């Protein structure tokens, strides 16, 4: 089956929150795709992009309902089908690729079983044919051991591979329309580029019409012919990808573009070098039983050397599993290193929390990735910020109150939010509170663990700006952990690249990122999608040896 045309008119979707009144979450959406065309739905979380994408399958999540409009695929009116006809459509003519492949595969059944299930249910082909087709798709999608990978269970393959297996599951029936819902968001950039390449190739060969949901404009630029920019469930702008990139008409589109471009303007001026603050010498961290030499069974980090002067910002980049979070946790005292020493302000830091002085606790603060998990949902903002003040400083009520208000000013939040609970704040506001809580201790060093990763690009960019400003004003040093090179580039003086627990390259940010010496650094930098069409095609395919490395 080749791609079919898709026309959506006046789509409206309503949601009823538990115990609340029904409200419109997607309003008046319309677009038309010729066979084989790809449309990108782009917008921040909560903009309704997944809801719209699911409506193409005639599906609304529980609590939502498709209230009006039409979805015309070829000559089928999708929204007017009865349940049986809808089932016959799904997984046959329209297929869905979910964001998290790890969650979308049934953990107790083999991959092959799940890949061919749709084809068998719809009676498109025999089991034997379906298996052969699946194996050939595994080949096309550049999966390792394509003949046997189907015998494995989901937990036995990596995230990037699972995402490609899901693409095979979607394409097995040669659908006319494929919905890709942030299919690479959960992947490392080095994996993402491979998955994008595989997706693009198989979809182009089959002439599949597709809808690509994403919040990342640079990725969208590689995949889509048209872009529809969403905010609060309404269309802000709809145009061809080239025009959106070249001449964004809407202010919101421009802010998305600005957030997606490297923020060179943020790059701080390097001040005079301060006093020695943090000194790490030949650090090794691991878990599991230790052997006679004291080496743990699983080494997460090894041979790490690091120097940080006061007021300096050091970026640590690497993909998931490279040990970058473990480094922050070792400095914070949450994991004990098996070898090496950490010195803070020229004094040895105890490897465990128990051995550290209150003053050391105060001077080293950590900000976690997810403010949702790091802030106690039962406490008000006031109480959250009061806690470190009570712990570290001997202040009376008035002084504490004044300090809390000062902190709110520092992170640029209005004071009336003090009475709110974290659940009543937006993602960006929560991350600011998370930051203010660390600042309350007047620290010399803040460990930032992926502080912008969970945020939308525009919100994340604002947090980054705040970090730069705080550093300028307070002279605090950062150990900034990120997988996103552009955030490191805009905030940090120096950078350290981690790969499989080892430091492969380190030095001044400009020098390392502009003239990378190590192969992995080059690959990491080269994998970050650029905001121009044709970038994906311009990248050389990864060699076989590099492919097996990941």
């Amino acid at each position: 089956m080749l791609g079919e045309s898709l026309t959506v008119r006046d789509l409206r979707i309503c949601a009823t929150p538990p115990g609340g009144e029904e409200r419109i979450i997607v309003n008046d959406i319309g677009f038309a795709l010729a066979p084989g065309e790809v449309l990108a739905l782009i917008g921040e979380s909560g903009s309704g992009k997944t809801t719209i994408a699911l409506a193409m399958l005639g599906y609304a999540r529980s609590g939502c309902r498709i209230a009006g409009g039409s979805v015309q695929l070829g000559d089928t009116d999708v929204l007017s089908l009865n349940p049986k006809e809808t089932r016959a459509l799904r997984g046959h003519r329209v297929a869905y690729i979910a964001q998290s492949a790890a969650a979308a595969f049934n953990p107790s059944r083999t991959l092959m079983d799940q890949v061919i299930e749709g084809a068998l249910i719809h009676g498109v082909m025999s089991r034997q044919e379906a298996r052969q087709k699946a194996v050939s798709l595994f080949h096309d999608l550049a999966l390792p051991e394509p003949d046997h990978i189907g015998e494995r269970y989901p937990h036995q393959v990596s995230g990037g591979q699972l995402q490609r297996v899901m693409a095979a599951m979607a394409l097995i029936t040669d659908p006319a329309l494929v919905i890709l819902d942030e299919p690479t968001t959960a992947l490392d950039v080095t994996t993402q580029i491979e998955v994008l390449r595989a997706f693009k190739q198989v979809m182009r060969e089959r002439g599949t019409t597709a809808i690509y949901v994403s919040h990342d404009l640079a990725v969208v630029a590689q995949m889509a012919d048209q872009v529809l920019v969403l905010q609060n469930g309404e269309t802000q702008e709809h145009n061809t990808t080239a025009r959106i990139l070249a001449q964004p008409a809407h202010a919101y589109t421009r802010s998305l573009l600005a957030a997606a471009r490297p923020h060179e303007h943020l790059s701080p001026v390097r001040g005079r070098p301060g006093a020695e603050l943090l000194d790490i010498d030949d650090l090794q961290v691991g878990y599991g039983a230790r052997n006679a030499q004291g080496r743990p069974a699983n080494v997460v980090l090894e041979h790490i050397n690091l120097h940080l002067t006061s007021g300096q910002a050091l970026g640590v980049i690497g993909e998931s599993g490279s040990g970058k979070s473990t480094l922050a946790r070792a400095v914070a005292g949450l994991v004990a290193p098996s070898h090496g020493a950490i010195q803070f302000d020229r004094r040895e830091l105890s490897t465990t929390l128990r051995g550290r002085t209150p003053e050391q606790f105060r001077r080293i603060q950590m900000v976690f990735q997810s403010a949702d998990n790091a802030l106690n949902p039962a406490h008000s903002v006031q109480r959250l910020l009061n806690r470190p003040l009570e712990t570290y400083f001997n202040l009376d009520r008035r002084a504490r109150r004044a300090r809390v208000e000062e902190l709110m000013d520092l992170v640029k939040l209005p004071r009336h939010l003090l009475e709110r609970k974290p659940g009543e704040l937006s993602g960006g506001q929560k991350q600011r509170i998370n930051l203010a809580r660390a600042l309350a201790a007047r620290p010399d060093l803040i460990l930032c663990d992926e502080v912008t990763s969970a945020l939308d690009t525009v919100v994340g960019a604002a947090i980054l700006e705040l970090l730069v400003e705080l550093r300028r004003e307070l002279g605090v040093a950062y150990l900034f952990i990120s997988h996103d090179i552009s955030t490191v580039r805009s905030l940090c003086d120096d950078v350290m690249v981690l790969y499989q627990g080892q430091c492969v390259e380190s030095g001044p940010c400009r020098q390392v990122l502009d003239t990378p010496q190590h192969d992995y650094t080059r690959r990491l930098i080269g994998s970050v999608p650029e905001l121009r069409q044709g970038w994906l095609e311009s990248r050389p395919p990864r060699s076989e040896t590099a492919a097996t490395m990941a």
Partner: protein
Amino acid sequence: MSKLVLGRLSSSLLTLFLVSLVIFAITSLLPGDTAQQILGQFATPEQLAALRVEMGLDQPALWRYWHWLSGFVTGDLGMSASNGMPVAQLMNDRLPNSLLLAAITTAISVPVALTMGLVAAMRRGGNVDRALNVVTLSMVAVPEFLVATIAVLIFAVHLGWLPALSYVSTVESFGDFMRIYAMPVLTLCCVLIAQMARMTRAALIDQLDSAYVEMARLKGVPPMRRVLRHALPNAVGPIANAVALSLSYLLGGVIIVETIFNYPGIASLMVDAVSNRDLALVQACAMLFCGAYLILVMAADLCAILSNPRLRNR
């Protein structure tokens, strides 16, 4: 996987050993001893002392424990103090009755409970779910002696269809069998079905809300297949545990049913033994119940391991 199973097995044996210690300690703490019980309150101290020496009751507790445990392992459960018969023979007379009642109840309650839980989970929030919810909740809430008494009132007293007492020895035909077992089984089923159905529903709903079931739905998988092929295999672990916990009740916990219907089972044997201070019999019964419980829980663990490829392929 075999490592995992061996681990479970050895921890079960360890538990059984610890339980034997506790049982022995507690029965030793009971006021009055077997010699006192046998001779009655008019015995002279000399008679008591003589009997204690004869029965070995004057030996240190640890030695007696060792004696009891080694006898237990070799199949010698000791003599019943109250009627002088071997404990093994007493239990032999009763155990088949209990096992039969348990087997019939299991055969009826497990399929019914699983079906009810499944239907309720599939029709979540609908009328069927709400009706089943009310039924199971009231089944849990009503005590079994009330169910049994009402059943006797209706079926034995008013309608006269069934005998009020279960004389197992009078069974001659299949019809007799049905009549005698109908009410005890009905009463037990009421309690068990409600618990198991609710646990099944909860475990299934947990899985039905997961992303992979939504994915199956978006592949066009029909509802029945979504539940049976996708959700159920991942819910086997919690369901098996709920079933095991419910069934473990069928050996030792059915005293009320056995008493009301005068059914000669093992639970009433133990209660009699306690009131007669027949320590050897109490200990043997307690060990039996504990052993049965451990076997059921281990079977449930095995189900959970087998249904999970992560554990199975280790």
